[in-house]
Structure formats: C-alpha cells, structure tokens
C-alpha cells in the first residue's frame, strides 16, 4: 500500500519548468530514495509535498487523502516530517528546546501549557539519547557542530511521531563515520515503522539504505525500481551517472 502518492505533479517558476508531470509513490514502511542530477526537481517535489510551495497541477495524496494546498504546519500535523538540505535548527534555543518545539498544542492549549512539560521532556531526552547527543541537551543549537545539528534535526522531526519523513540530503557534508551512524538511525526508525523518502547524491548511501529508488531528470521520473535494477538501468546510467 502506498503511503504517499504523487501523480502528474507540476511546478513552474516563470519560464522554468521545475517539476513536469512527476508521478511516484512511496510504499508504507519503505525507505525510498529520490535521486537525479542537480536541478532535476527533487527538492521542489519535497517543497510541494510539505506545503512550502503551491503546486501548479497534479495531485498529492497521503494515506489516500489529498494534502495539496495545505500549509507546512498542517502537513506536519498530519504526520509528514521533513529535514532541510543544510541542517536547520533553532540556533538560540538549546538542543532540548529544539526538541520540544515540534510537540504541538493546538489553539489556546499552546498558550496555557508549559513549554517543558515533564513527559515531553522525558521523551525528548530519550530521543536525544537514541541519537547519542543527550550530552548537549543544554547547549545552544548555534554552538553545536554540523554533525550534531544533523542528528538534532532528525531527532526533533521525530518528536511528533510522524509516519513519513522526507530527508533532504541526510548525508550532505558529513564524514563517513557519522554517515554510517545516520544510516543506522534511519534503519532503526524504519524498523519501528517510520517510512522515509530521501533525496541524496551519495550513491553508496542510497544504494545501501533504500528499498526503492526513484530517478528524476528535468522534472520527470525516468526510472523507478530496486537499487540493483536502477544501478543497471541504461537510461539512468546515461542521464545521471554519466557512465
């Protein structure tokens, strides 16, 4: 069963067609990779799914429900989390506070409930512990290393227990040791039932981690399948790998 279903999605920026009739689906419980050359529209697809950009055409369905036209906060509320290309955290909040921001309280409950509620704090500390960064819980986000920010961003997104997480270049700018840690965390979270869709340029990372891979070029999907199939697909080799 597909958790996320994108059909004939399109987006233009003036004369540039960034996404051109893109259709893909993300099976529930999978780790799906979205690859393609620079400018092929991968991040734009992320921005369209998470409500950061309005679509020009097509349909986006999450758990069979249309989510096109919803704002980013509502998309997150429905169970879709995302990270950004360059790890984005709140630099003037501590790591623990960064973890507590995503725990949502609707309407007046937000005004009346405390920012650091006991059980939420416990859950946040457990998650920081899971990512091996609980020692920096009291440190300001701006003082963390890039690797710690990457882990913190992923940990924070998980706080509202999303069903689908969109990771934009999780391996970007991190050393090989940390890369393996991030991959392991993604595998473990996937084992707990979280579905992942990730954009990545590191082919080794994608091929080792993903169950399914979708390849985009010039805003369109040109191939999809298992990593082993993609690796040998002539169209992909020609368009993307340049081999």
């Amino acid at each position: 069963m597909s958790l996320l279903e994108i059909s004939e999605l399109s987006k233009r920026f003036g004369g540039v067609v960034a996404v051109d009739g893109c259709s893909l689906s993300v099976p529930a419980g999978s780790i799906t990779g979205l690859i393609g050359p620079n400018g092929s529209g991968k991040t734009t697809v992320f921005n369209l799914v998470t409500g950061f950009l309005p679509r020009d055409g097509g349909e986006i369905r999450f758990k069979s429900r249309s989510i096109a036209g919803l704002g980013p906060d509502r998309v997150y509320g429905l169970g879709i989390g995302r990270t950004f290309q360059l790890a984005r955290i709140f630099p003037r909040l501590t790591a623990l506070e960064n973890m507590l921001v995503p725990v949502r309280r609707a309407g007046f409950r937000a005004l009346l409930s405390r920012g650091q509620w006991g059980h939420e704090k416990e859950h946040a500390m457990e998650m920081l512990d899971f990512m091996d960064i609980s020692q920096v819980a009291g440190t300001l986000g701006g003082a963390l290393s890039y690797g710690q920010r990457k882990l913190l961003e992923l940990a924070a997104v998980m706080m509202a227990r999303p069903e689908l997480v969109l990771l934009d270049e999780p391996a970007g700018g991190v050393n090989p040791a940390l890369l393996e840690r991030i991959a392991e965390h993604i595998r473990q979270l996937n084992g707990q039932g979280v579905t992942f869709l990730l954009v990545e340029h590191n082919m080794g990372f994608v091929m080792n981690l993903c169950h399914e891979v979708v390849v985009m070029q010039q805003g369109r999907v040109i191939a999809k399948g298992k990593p082993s199939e993609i690796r040998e697909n002539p169209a992909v080799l020609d368009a993307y790998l340049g081999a």
Partner: protein
Amino acid sequence: MSRTVALKALGLVVLAVLALLVPVLAPDPATTNVAVFTMMYVGLATAWNIMGGYTGYISLGHAAFFGFGAYSLGLLLNQLHIAPGYGPFVLVPVAGLLAALLAVGIGWVALRTRAATFVIVTIAFMFMLQLLAENLVKLTGGGAGLSLPYPRDWGGDFFNTPYYYAMLALAVLALVVSWWIRRSKFGLGLLAIRDDEDKALAVGVPTRAFKLTAFVISAGLVGMIGAVYGYYVTFIYPQFVIDPLIGISMVLMVFLGGLGTLSGPVLGAVLLEPAQLQFAYHFGASRLYLVLYSAVFLVVILLMPRGIVPSVADLWHRWRRRRAAGPTATARGPRKAVKAASP
C-alpha cells in the same frame, strides 16, 4: 541553586514593596510624575517585547495602539458621560480590547510581510491612524484635540497617585503575561519563529496564528496603557498620542535592556525614561533628548548589541566559570568553554 532562587524572590519582594511605596516615600508631584511615566514605559517596553523580542518582528508602529487606546477611552468617557474619578479606570480594559481588535486587522495584513517590510508596514499603519485621527474631526476633534474628564477632587500631592498605581498594575500585568508566555508552549513557538520561521513551520508551528496572537496581546496591553495615559494628561491630539517617538522609545528601551528577556525591558525603561525627563527638565521641552536617545542607541549597537541583561549575564557566567576552574585555569577558561560547547 536554591540560594539563587531565594535571592531572586527576595529581590522581587523588595522591588515590589519599593514600587508600591513610591508615592508614600516621595509624594511631591514632580517625582510622582516621573514615576508615572517610568512605570508607563516599563509596561510599554514589556508589552512590545512580547511581539518584538520573542518573535523578532520589529514593530515601529506600536504608538498606533497607544493612541488608539487613549482615543478609545476618551470617546467612551465622553459619549457615556462617565464622571471623573475612579470610574474611568474600569473602562481601561475596554480600550485595550478595542486596541486588540484593531491589531487583529492590522496584524492580518502586516504579518504577511517579514523583516524590513514588516517594520515599514507598521510605520505606515501608524501614520494612517494619525491621519484618520486628524481628519475624522466630528469623532476625534481632529487637530484641535480631545478633552477627557478631569478629576478635580484629586488635588495637590495626591493627583498623580491613582495614575501611578494604574500604570504599576498594567506594568505588572504586562510582566506576568510576558513571563507566562515565555514559559509556555506558545512562547517556545514564538522563539522558534524568531530563530527560523520556515523551519518552525516545517515542525508544525502555526506561525501565522502564533504571530498574530502575540501581536494582538502586545497591542491590547499597549492600548490599555495608552488609555491611562490619555486620562492622565486629560487632553489628547493626534501627533501627541500617535507619536512615532513613543513607538521608538519603547523599542530603544527593550534594545538597551535586552531584547527577548523578561527583565531587559524593565531595566531599559527605568534607566532611560527618568534620564529623558531630566534631560527635558534641564534643556527645556524641546526634542533635544533625541540626541541622548541616538547616543544610547549607538552605544548599545557598538558595545552591547544584545543589551545589558544578556551581556551582564554572560560576564557573570564567565566569571563564575573562571572562579570554579581556579586561578591556574583562569587563562584557559574561555577557550575551554568554547571547546566544550562544540565538541
């Protein structure tokens, strides 16, 4: 830790008692007048900080809500023929509510913009309101001004006292609201917006609703303070209450004390407002005090861009760390701290 909490509590009690005793300790009208204005700016700066300090949205047009509150109370008193005395104070929350309603409209539009554009839009709205107050002559009296009832029974030294306590009550209200927001989920969302609004959206913070709520709360408090001010001066006209300098003063006080802190706006107001009044006293009621303001602004920007409270807190923490590390580690203290913060 508990000793620090006890010291803080003791300090707060002493401050509260001192604030309550001002009219008793120094009953002469010249002093209580300074106290009324100082307390007014404590409230204004604290209320402004709920929006500007927590969300990072710098509004230079808050004087619009101040003036709107003053006009609202004036018109209510005149239309309903309320006798001067303590009665008008009961209507102050109504004036605040009206200012909050105005803020819903202004915020709805202004909060579609960010950064410098938001600053300019708030200034534009303030001048629009000033123009309206000037031109709706039948309602506001236009440039000729609007008179509010004058409590003749409060003569001599007593006259300023009720206004002082009203301003004190509103300043305490603003502080309690600010403190409450700072420790709430809502406040955490506001701080997240200040740091990175798009990221806040991505993790589910309903940014538009949060910003608008902060803006409306801030404006409502400013409106109530404006209403008491109008009743205090008993005569208002557009340039006098919808005055850009009132808006700029509250912002400057927050920047001086510490943007986004609870005590910063209080400190900024307590330092700056009596200084400004003394300046006006010695150099006449000219706008020469603006030279003082610009000098303060320059000093803040050049030496303490984060304001007094965060800068002093930093120094205090650094001193304590050095003391804890002992004399031999003193020279290496700060470097160690940086290392520990970014392993």
